[in-house]
């Protein structure tokens, strides 16, 4: 589903991503982990062609990420999600559906289902300016689900959510995973990642430290957090 082939990204003298290669297979729930500034968001941006690699190549479903067609079945939630304050959550979801060429009736049907799925019934018509950060994040997740994507790319999906919201998001992602959706997750919440994901990669200062099944990364008696700290601190 996703393939990174010796990808390097430099910003001047700073190497944000340093010769990283890995693959994520269809139906996999994958977590990209690393401390702040490790290069996680840069990899996500390169997957979406928001920025181009200095060297190497990326592809999704065999299509180079530079081709907009590769984004045909991707849902994306950015790290700091925003909704234009002049729109309501409902209008925002409809707008996302319109951009995917959906008819008005199909868009309304699907947005209705998504509003229920993200638990925002009754608030969907309020202006986005009145939403809390957690509510905006939920609508962001909803927007990522518009168009029934095959691949979800989520950059800190639980950012701004309270513990109940975090749990609900995990349960929602678990149900999507059971439906066969591929999930590419970027998160700092290691305990949630451990519960949800099948595989993980840990990067630090742009370099890939490990990429394996979580069960193989986490040894007996350890937690993902222990392994993460050990690897990152060297």
């Amino acid at each position, binding site marked *: 589903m996703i393939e990174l082939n010796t990808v390097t990204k430099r910003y001047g003298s700073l190497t944000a991503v340093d010769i990283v290669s890995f693959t994520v297979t269809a139906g996999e729930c994958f977590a990209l982990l690393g401390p702040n500034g490790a290069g996680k968001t840069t990899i996500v*941006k390169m997957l*979406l*062609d*928001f*920025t181009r690699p200095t060297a190497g190549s990326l592809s999704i479903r065999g299509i180079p990420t530079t081709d*907009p*067609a*590769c*984004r*045909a079945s*991707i849902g*994306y939630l*950015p790290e*700091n*999600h*925003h*909704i*234009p*304050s*002049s729109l309501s959550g409902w209008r925002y979801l409809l*707008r*996302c559906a*319109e*951009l*995917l*060429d959906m008819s008005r009736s199909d868009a309304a049907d699907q947005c209705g289902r998504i509003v229920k799925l993200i638990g925002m019934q009754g608030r969907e018509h309020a202006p986005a300016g009145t939403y809390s950060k957690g509510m905006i994040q939920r609508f962001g997740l909803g*927007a990522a689900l518009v168009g029934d994507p095959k691949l979800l*790319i989520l950059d800190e999906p639980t950012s701004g959510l309270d513990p109940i919201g975090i749990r609900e998001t995990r349960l929602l992602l678990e149900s999507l995973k059971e439906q066969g959706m591929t999930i590419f997750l970027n998160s700092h919440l290691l305990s949630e990642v451990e519960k949800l994901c099948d595989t993980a990669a840990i990067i630090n200062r742009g370099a890939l430290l490990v990429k394996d099944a979580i069960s193989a990364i986490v040894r007996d008696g350890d937690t993902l957090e222990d392994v993460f700290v050990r690897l990152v601190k060297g």
Partner: protein
Amino acid sequence: MPKTFPSVARIARHTLLDEVRQKSFIVMFAVCALCVFLVRGCYHGDYMVNGQHVDAGVIVRAVSKVTFHIIGAGVMVITALLSMRIFRRDRNDGTQSCVLSKPIARRQYVAGKIVGVWVVSLLFMFVLHGIVFLVTSLSLRDFMPEYLAASLLCSVNLLFVVVAVLLLSLLMPDIVAFLCVLGIGVVSFVVDGISAVSHSQMAQAMMRQSGAAPHSDLTWWKVVYYAWPKLLGIQQSATSLLGSDPFQGLGSLYPFINVLLYCLVLSAALFRRFGKEDIG
């Protein structure tokens, strides 16, 4: 993958709706419409030149023509103000990453933005010109549809402003981009204005009296003069439709060719520059 044209049209429609939902836009439009409507007060005066009454029809036509130019120039400034924050606003409110995470190419997004802002500005100007048209038509009891056609011709200037400001806003702070395009417009109006005055009958007569011979050789400033965006030239050519200025053949077409060429070159540079931008 969504087809090219519908994607551009949708992004343009979203841009248009986002603009007209802004309170500042509505207030600005209401103030401009009110000011233009108040121009009708000029139509009812008793004007005398050299002790002779001037025909009301002449006054109405002259005032409506001046108003036409003022609206054309004013809406260019408003268009520059609207365009300068388009990319920054989209970046800040997440619209850019939302749109470009869909199977939509960057060139479609940029084209949608250009069309959206251009159509908003065009409608803004067309409605203001429409008010003058109505007031003038009612005062003269004579409809002048060419007034509206002239307004549409002036929309080429707005396209230039949109593309220029969008491009410059990627290269420099928004306010500097606005001021640069404003400067280009001011120079165009001053230079074309001086040229128009120097070619007037009165100026020609004064030159003949003083014995000054007009220079016909090609100098560097003439090259700059002809190559500079002919924004006032377009407005002058458009007002030739109003009957008072004669249509001057290729001379009237040159400003359109000049500004359209600028639009093409700047658009190409804008698409190329935005293609290299980091999103998000």
